[in-house]
């Protein structure tokens, strides 16, 4: 069968979401940010939320998220996205508000903000991109950097006696009664990306239903910071990150209920 007979509008099965605009993303080739942006754009389109969504951009590589997803955005100071999201969500309770933060933003300088926003149970979605490194500023050690992992500030690998232990902040957040849905996902394979989309859809629905904070961690790669090709970075993540940061739901309940985990 000729290819031109297949390429017809009626046979279309997968296309770019209309919520994503045509700007070429500044991310490095193979960066997980692109996949997560795309999934969020698809969900916002499918759930008809384009006119009522407010995203809070972080400091980090994803600071330019507002250039790519065609919704309302507000940029926050480093780590303060949950505080800004609290204000937006309280003033505009009919809007869907989400923050999009990296591990340097959320787990380091913004720890106080994220802990208290989740503890208050603000009706927001937090997307947490965990690649174990400060990607934008040159690959320095982050709180989530694995033990022994080489970064530009730990050239001999992270030493836990000197630098402390990698922080599983999602597990801490799952303990807070304000959160309703806490999960850890990945986007390195098509299967994982489809699962992530299902999780994000559930998280968005929880926010729309005013169930409290939903928190979705995405274990990601930073192939530039890790000094690897995108495919090698995905393999390294599977072998090293996923055993320490296992995927799966940590909490799925109503606000105020305590989780089994």
């Amino acid at each position, binding site marked *: *069968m000729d*290819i031109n*007979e*297949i*390429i*017809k509008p009626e*046979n*279309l*099965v*997968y*296309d*770019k*979401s209309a919520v*994503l605009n045509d700007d*070429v*993303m500044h*991310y*490095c*080739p*193979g*960066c*997980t*940010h*692109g*996949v997560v942006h*795309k999934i969020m754009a698809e969900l916002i389109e499918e759930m008809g939320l384009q006119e009522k969504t407010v995203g809070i951009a972080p400091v980090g590589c994803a600071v330019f998220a507002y250039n790519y997803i065609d919704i309302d955005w507000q940029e926050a100071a480093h780590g303060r996205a949950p505080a800004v999201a609290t204000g937006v969500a309280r003033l505009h309770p009919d809007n869907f508000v989400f923050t999009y933060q990296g591990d340097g933003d959320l787990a380091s300088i913004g720890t106080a903000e994220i802990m208290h926003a989740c503890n208050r149970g603000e009706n927001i979605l937090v997307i947490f991109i965990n690649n174990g490194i400060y990607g934008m500023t040159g690959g320095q050690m982050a709180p989530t950097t694995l033990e022994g992992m080489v970064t530009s500030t730990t050239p001999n690998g992270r030493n836990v006696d000197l630098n402390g232990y990698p922080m599983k902040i999602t597990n801490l957040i799952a303990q807070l009664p304000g959160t309703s849905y806490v999960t850890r996902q990945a*986007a*390195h*394979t*098509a299967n994982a*990306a*489809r699962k992530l989309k299902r999780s994000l859809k559930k998280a968005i629905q929880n926010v729309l239903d005013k169930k409290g904070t939903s928190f979705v961690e995405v274990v990601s790669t930073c192939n530039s910071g890790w000094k690897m*090709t*995108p*495919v090698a970075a*995905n393999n390294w993540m599977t072998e090293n990150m996923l055993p320490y940061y296992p995927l799966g739901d940590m909490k799925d309940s109503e606000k105020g209920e305590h989780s089994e985990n």
Partner: protein
Amino acid sequence: MAKVKGAVVVDKEGCKGCSLCVEACPHDVLALHKEVNSKGYHYSFMENPDECIGCANCGVVCPDTCITIYRVKVS
């Protein structure tokens, strides 16, 4: 049993040659081209178009959303 045929259209200029789609393809349809686009990236293309089943795995993992997928049932 109806057979499924698919086709992939890659936006050459949007592709950054990360090759995640090449890895994600279960039928080894995609490969990186020997030539480069205007930004110097080896772009992805259908090397074995007859094998494509339109599963959309390549499109789902593409960080730059430059893959469009079509699928048709052939009886």
